[in-house]
């Protein structure tokens, strides 16, 4: 019986956050700091004809103005094609950095940035994915092109079919914290405070850009004010910050403005999808054709595997799911919460709803008819899959059986009521990760790993896991992260941190237990003589036999007897072999009520029940918060979020929080999140799966389906704004 895993725990870093003591990247105190401000291009494509920095250089407080003419060149790294600024006169996207002004104060740098005069040779640009469809190509990695069965023939012969196109605009993550870095050099050694989801990735990127050994770069990132994917790839400001610091021989800080974030870290790509479904009259799917196209940049290939998860959702013998990309004169897109999955499932789950209406079958029933008992893609069994339980529990909590099938059949005065549902899916990934535990004879432990905590509660989850397996109280554990001086951990992305880093912490704790047992059994009359490490556990300072706790050794006495103030173990956890024999996914079911104003087309999401099955829950308190946050991201995607590009200028016209709408508290009414726990011994030693992205995956489709039920209008282009319903 677990003491801490699965029990609610308030965040261990909570006090630091509510008192303002938690330090984010821009907030470290470094003496003699200079402030950088980025000057951005005003064209989307072309070259810089001339750049005049004289007036800016004369402005008060300005130390230096860097442009492509005087900035040093970064090393070329064929493995890392991410954009590096100020390297040539070429403009690849609008709002690309063309200069960096460094001054004594932020205000001086910002003021002088307006004095930099740039003349361009503009070239004809294309930022509109729709205009480029003829040039759509397969991503070079060739993933996802495998065809199952014969979908074209099956579709042709299907007695019931639906086919439609779906569109998702560019969206930006908009974490509340702007990206920022502070860099300083000591000789050839670089230290940088950065907002990142992976300190090791930033370290590698910086070391390769400057041509210095990785060991000479320290990246520190203890708190991240939200990221959602925007701090996964190396962005261009850390290299700029470090470059300026090196040239000026003093610490430099760069903070993006909110506007610069829209061209500073990537975005969810503009995505067009076509879904065709064929079914027999009983509702059994006979064909799925799911094709997606989204944009990338002109200088880099990115794809979010839009149709990847959709291959594994329904049992269907004939399937083709593909993704093509087109090159636009925009910055490179990137992963944004539930990348690919939420886009692909918006299309697939909308199409399933359309099919339900074509068949006159209840939408939930249609999902149950096509339930995948084994992985339709690989034929492997699931390590665990409680999706059916999610459907049934969600339907019951929501009151789905009271739903009237016909659209426009429920009403509350001027408001049309609609009920919709959809399925969510995400992976159960695990990547190699390492953690180090130092157990001290005073009964405390220090646990470290270079993972990050962008908000889900990694600090707390790791503290819980360490406390559980070291048999200590959470107050006796100090967990630290976000520092390249700690053992390597993967990027905090793909919802795999608890699985990966948690397994490493678990493994390190087991190594501590084994070490203690070894010490104990050096003594001839140890009560644990003959026991294997797996037979014993640590509990409140006792190393005891699991089967007979009366046989124990006091661990801390033992350490003292051996003159050990502390013992340290580092453990690297890797995905198990066994995983290869199974298909592993996390699932969820979402039920949504909307009210749509019959005259104004305003959509209110009045009620959501979301049931998720993602293995074991380490900390229900933070886990529910993750799911609620995911649901609200789904609301934003469904109803509000869109980055508008004026294609005439190739420029984003709403790069701020006034015009890019993220959900506010008035958009969030009743949200209930429920977990159906799965006992999964295959995925990893802790039995945990990803949940951070899962929470939003089915929501946009569920809302669109509810809007259809309310109004009879099928909106296939997000966001569902009132104009589309009038």
């Amino acid at each position, binding site marked *: 019986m677990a003491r801490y895993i699965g029990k609610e725990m308030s965040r261990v870093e909570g006090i630091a956050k509510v008192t303002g003591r938690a*330090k984010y990247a821009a907030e470290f105190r470094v003496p003699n700091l200079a402030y950088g401000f980025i000057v951005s291009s005003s064209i989307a494509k072309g070259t810089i004809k001339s750049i005049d920095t004289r007036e800016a250089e004369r402005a008060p407080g300005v130390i230096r103005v860097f442009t492509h003419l005087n900035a040093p060149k970064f090393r070329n790294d064929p493995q890392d094609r991410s954009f590096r600024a100020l390297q040539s006169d070429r403009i690849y996207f609008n709002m690309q950095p063309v200069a960096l002004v460094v001054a004594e104060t932020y205000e001086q740098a910002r003021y002088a940035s307006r004095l930099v005069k740039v003349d361009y040779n503009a070239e004809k640009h294309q930022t509109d994915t729709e205009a480029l469809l003829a040039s759509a190509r397969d991503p070079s990695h060739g993933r996802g092109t495998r065809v199952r069965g014969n979908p074209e023939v099956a579709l042709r012969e299907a007695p019931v079919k639906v086919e439609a196109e779906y569109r998702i605009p560019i969206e930006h993550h908009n974490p*509340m914290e702007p990206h920022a870095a502070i860099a300083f050099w000591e000789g050839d050694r670089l230290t940088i405070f950065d907002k990142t989801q992976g300190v090791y990735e930033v370290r590698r990127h910086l070391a390769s850009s400057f041509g210095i050994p990785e060991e000479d770069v320290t990246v520190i990132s203890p708190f991240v004010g939200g990221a959602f994917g925007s701090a996964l790839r190396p962005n261009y400001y850390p290299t700029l910050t470090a470059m300026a610091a090196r040239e000026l021989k003093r610490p430099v800080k760069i903070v993006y403005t909110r506007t610069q974030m829209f061209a500073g870290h990537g975005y969810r790509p503009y995505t067009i999808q076509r879904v065709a479904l064929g079914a027999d009259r009983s509702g059994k799917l006979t064909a799925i054709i799911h094709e997606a196209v989204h944009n990338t940049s002109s200088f880099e290939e990115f794809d979010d595997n839009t149709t990847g998860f959709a291959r594994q959702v329904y049992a269907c013998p004939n399937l083709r799911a593909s993704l093509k990309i087109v090159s636009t004169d925009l910055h490179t897109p990137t992963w944004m919460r539930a990348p690919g999955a939420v886009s692909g499932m918006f299309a697939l789950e909308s199409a399933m709803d359309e099919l339900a209406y074509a068949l006159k079958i209840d939408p939930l029933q249609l999902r149950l008819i096509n339930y995948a008992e084994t992985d339709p893609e690989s034929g492997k069994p699931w390590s665990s899959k409680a999706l059916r339980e999610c459907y049934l529990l969600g339907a019951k909590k929501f009151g789905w059986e009271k739903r009237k099938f016909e659209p426009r059949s429920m009403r509350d005065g001027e408001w049309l009521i609609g009920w919709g549902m959809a399925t969510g899916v995400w992976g159960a990934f695990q990547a190699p990760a390492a953690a180090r535990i130092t157990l001290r004879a005073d009964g405390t432990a220090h646990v470290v790993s270079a993972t990050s905590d962008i908000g889900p509660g990694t600090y707390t989850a790791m503290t819980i896991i360490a406390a559980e397996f070291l048999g200590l109280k959470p107050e006796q554990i100090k967990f630290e992260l976000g520092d390249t001086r700690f053992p390597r951990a993967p990027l905090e992305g793909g919802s795999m941190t608890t699985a990966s880093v948690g397994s490493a912490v678990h493994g390190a704790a087991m190594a501590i237990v084994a070490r203690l047992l070894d010490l104990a059994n050096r003594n001839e009359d140890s009560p644990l003589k003959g026991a294997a490490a797996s037979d014993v556990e640590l509990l409140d300072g006792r190393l005891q036999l699991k089967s007979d706790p009366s046989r124990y050794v006091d661990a801390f006495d033992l350490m003292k007897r051996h003159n050990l103030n502390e013992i340290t173990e580092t453990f690297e956890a890797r995905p198990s072999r066994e995983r290869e024999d199974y298909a592993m996914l996390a699932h969820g079911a979402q039920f949504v009520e909307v009210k749509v104003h019959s005259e104004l087309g305003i959509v209110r999401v009045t009620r959501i029940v979301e049931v998720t099955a993602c293995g074991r829950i380490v900390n229900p308190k933070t886990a529910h*918060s993750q799911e609620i946050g995911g649901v609200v991201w789904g609301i934003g995607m469904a109803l509000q979020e869109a980055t508008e590009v004026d294609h005439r200028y190739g420029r984003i016209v709403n790069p701020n929080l006034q015009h890019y709408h993220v959900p506010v508290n008035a958009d969030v009414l009743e949200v209930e999140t429920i977990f159906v726990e799965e006992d999964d011994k295959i995925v990893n030693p802790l039995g945990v799966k990803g949940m951070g992205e899962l929470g939003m995956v089915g929501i946009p489709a569920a809302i669109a389906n509810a809007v259809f039920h309310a109004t009879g209008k099928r909106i296939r282009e997000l966001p569902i704004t009132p104009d589309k319903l009038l």
Partner: protein
Amino acid sequence: MRCELITIKVNGEERTLAVAPNRTLLNLLREDLNLTGTKQGCDDGDCGACTVLVDGRPVLACIKLAAQCDGCEVTTIEGLAREGRLDRVQEAFWHEGGMQCGFCTPGMIMSSYALLQRNPHPTEAEIRQAISNNLCRCTGYTKIVAAVKRAATFAEFTQR
């Protein structure tokens, strides 16, 4: 640009400072006084992360010039806990889990604190109104609203 001398009381401590006329209150707090608990989310008046109290009223520090605060009393998130004891609003945000990344949290807490100062028993609508200026990208707001409700019921902390 000429600096001006201002006198300003920050978290109970009186300071006399030279400020450039284009220095915002936000940068005065963060850069000059190292009070980085007050966050910069947009620098545009759109997000509420920079909310502080000026003479008891919630104000967006990013669109307030420091020079305008001459003679004012400013309270930041760092000024809420007394003698190492969290304010009830801080306590409630922590225990209710009204935060994830924590970046909106100081602003949320300051808006909520100001609400409870002027209205100790707010309705849910009044709570939502009071924090309507504050964006949160992580939590989905529900636990933040719950935290403010809970703070209002912490009778033992109310009188201070």
